[in-house]
């Protein structure tokens, strides 16, 4: 690499080294290597662009291709002016690549390219279709952030789409009977981004024309059909609502959905179900929801093909109503437990990162969990059912159930669920009762994870369950006497005794802190009745045990130990209040 730079300094033509320079810059092991790579890139690429004036456009093309594949943001500022000069090169191949290079720059650093937007818009009107297509590609990315400025593009887009659909492009762009499908799809995608309100009306006619043309075609046409539907769905809702009513296949794009979903081609089935997910539920009219469609959806659920099954499950979630909620939620729960745990999937990512890694995309398991919780809250048939579902999830749920999940459930119980089947006044009390039963069942020990992963970490406690159980007891433990349904009524002293037992049995500091806060809350509610002496002695004992045991190794658990001591001290203060 250093020899290359030397050669360049001496004025030799070392253009061939550009690729190697790039590679070194990106994957160099040491800092020295990376610096050499970057320097070489800078030198070589600059020279490459000065070759614009040379008639052999191939060199320019190579330089631009390197730029397109680059991911080095610092080199961009010096390159932008060169690339813009290339935009007006005589050879269309160069113009095309200049546009793609600009698109690449845009994704890396938006502000650098933005001032030159007008020049790129001019490229839209380029007589060469491939250059226009590349400009469209640029806008497809840019429009997501800058929809406002792009509104002026709409008439141009409409014209382009009209031209393509009418077949005005050269014969070479015909693909299996379909005129330039990729250009059509790009136009549609940009329109979808731009068309959120008033402009939709202007764009609808041309979109419908594209739809009509596509309905007559074959393989490639299906892609365009899918895109048309997606675009229409992102337009103003009134448009799709008006269209869905008509039974005429030419007018109603939604009638293609049954065609997709019932076909024997598995790809089309997948896309059919995808489309169903995207259509606004208000637009589900009898005009196109045929018997066959329903059958196809049911079939998809049972399909052995994992991808189709996942889509169908998503669709079901949107179809939730009071009647079918229980079935659907059962399916969702089943799918949830089938889904592989994220930690095992990513292998080397490291278990130390799994706890609080801020991920931009929720994993599938988290998504399903969110859906289950949401569905259960909105459509559950009864409180007992809801609580048994929650307990099941908390105990068996695995690492996806975090403390945040528990907090979500807690806020539901506190503020009341939206489902009509629930009596929200009963819900918290039942929760407390269930918690008591659960604790008795578990013999007060929450450290056993005999349900899942007996091989790995058998002594790890399940914090989410503990969190939930002790929170409900703390908040609502005193209200349980209000419901005299069960044979075994739990009154406050029984609850306190249970809590004390838990304290004795579980030595893990996190669980102990939960128990202690529950105890404190209940004792405040129990005032002015005094706390039984037995319980206070237990707490004092635990407190002393903590101070006399050897300091634990990690700093984190030291903090929780101090936390436990703090809570124990608070409880003892309250207990003393009652006595005095």
């Amino acid at each position, binding site marked *: 690499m250093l020899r290359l730079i030397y050669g360049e300094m001496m004025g030799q033509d070392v253009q061939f080294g550009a690729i190697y320079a790039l590679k070194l810059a990106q*994957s160099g092991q040491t800092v020295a290597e990376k610096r050499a790579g970057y320097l070489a890139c800078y030198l070589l690429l600059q020279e490459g662009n000065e070759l614009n004036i040379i008639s052999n456009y191939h060199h320019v093309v190579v330089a631009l291709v390197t730029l397109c594949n680059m991911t080095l943001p610092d080199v961009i500022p010096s390159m932008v002016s060169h690339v813009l000069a290339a935009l007006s090169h005589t050879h269309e191949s160069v113009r095309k*690549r200049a546009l793609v290079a600009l698109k690449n720059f845009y994704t890396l650093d938006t502000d650098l390219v933005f001032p030159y937007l007008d020049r790129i818009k001019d490229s839209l009107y380029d007589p060469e279709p*491939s250059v226009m297509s590349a400009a469209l590609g640029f806008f497809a990315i840019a429009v997501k952030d800058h929809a406002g400025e792009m509104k002026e593009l709409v008439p141009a887009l409409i014209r382009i789409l009209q031209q393509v659909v009418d077949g005005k492009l050269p014969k070479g762009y015909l693909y299996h009977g379909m005129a330039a499908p*990729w250009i059509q799809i790009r136009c549609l995608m940009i329109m979808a981004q731009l068309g959120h309100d008033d402009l939709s009306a202007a764009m609808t006619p041309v979109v419908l024309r594209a739809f009509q043309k596509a309905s007559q075609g074959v393989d490639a046409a*299906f892609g365009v059909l899918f895109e048309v539907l997606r675009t229409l769905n992102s337009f103003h809702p009134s448009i799709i609502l008006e269209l869905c009513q008509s039974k005429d296949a030419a007018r109603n794009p939604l009638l293609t959905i049954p065609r997709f979903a019932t076909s024997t081609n598995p790809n089309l089935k997948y896309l059919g179900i995808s489309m169903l997910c995207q259509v606004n539920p208000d637009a589900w009219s009898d005009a196109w929801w045929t018997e066959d469609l329903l059958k196809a959806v049911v079939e998809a659920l049972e399909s052995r093909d994992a991808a*189709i099954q996942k889509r169908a499950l998503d669709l079901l979630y949107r179809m939730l109503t009071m009647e079918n909620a229980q079935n659907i939620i059962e399916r969702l729960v089943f799918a949830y437990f089938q889904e592989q745990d994220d930690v095992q999937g990513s292998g080397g990512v490291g278990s130390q990162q799994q706890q609080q890694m801020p991920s931009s*995309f929720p*994993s599938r398991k988290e998504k399903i969990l969110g859906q289950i919780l949401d569905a259960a809250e909105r459509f559950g048939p009864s409180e007992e059912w809801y609580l048994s579902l929650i307990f099941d999830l908390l105990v068996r749920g695995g690492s996806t159930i975090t403390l945040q999940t528990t907090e979500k459930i807690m806020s539901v119980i506190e503020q009341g669920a939206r489902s009509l089947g629930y009596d929200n006044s009963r819900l918290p009390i039942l929760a407390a009762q269930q918690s008591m039963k659960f604790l008795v069942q578990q013999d007060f020990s929450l450290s056993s994870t005999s349900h899942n992963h007996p091989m790995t970490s058998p002594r790890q406690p399940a914090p989410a369950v503990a969190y939930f159980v002790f929170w409900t007891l703390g908040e609502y433990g005193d209200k349980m006497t209000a419901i005299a349904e069960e044979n075994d009524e739990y009154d406050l002293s029984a609850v306190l005794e249970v809590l004390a037992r838990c304290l004795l049995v579980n030595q893990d500091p996190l669980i102990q802190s939960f128990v202690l806060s529950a105890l404190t809350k209940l004792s405040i509610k129990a005032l002015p009745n005094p706390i039984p002496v037995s319980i206070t002695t237990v707490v004092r004992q635990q407190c002393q045990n903590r101070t006399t045991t050897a300091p634990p190794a990690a700093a984190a658990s030291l903090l929780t130990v101090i936390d436990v001591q703090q809570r124990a001290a608070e409880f003892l203060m309250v207990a003393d209040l009652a006595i005095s």
Partner: protein
Amino acid sequence: MINFIIIFNRQGKIRLTRWYQYMTDKQKASLSQDVVTQILARKRGMCNILELEGRRETRGKAIYKRYASLFFCFGIDWNDNELSGLEVLHKYVECLDQYFGNVCELDIIYNYSAAYQVMDEMLLGGHAQETNKKVVVKHCKGFDKLEESDSIVHNLRASNIA
């Protein structure tokens, strides 16, 4: 956009890869292994679309198609049109076919640089930039001629100096 391209055969041996997004070598290796095993496990009647959702860093779909003994797999973004991706895949294979004249796996093994060349002509930065088969093949063959003439001139110069 297309995030990666992997071409592999039925035994799982990878013949060609192309990445349009920055990833460390370790991530690339694990992702390609993941995708290859998942695709090889699929049966005939299943659809050509795979959802890659297990990883936290990236979310996308993998579309694939089998041509004779090779699997061509494109990794695309979640919201992309899958069918258009499949068509681009097919177009790429058609271009390869026209360039090599009845392409087979051996052509790709021995002339992988030419396969990359065709790929770069067609796809750039993760998007299809030229879908006209004739233009793509014409450019590639033009490049070949240029290289040949360059190397002839270079050899002449070298022999003259010597």
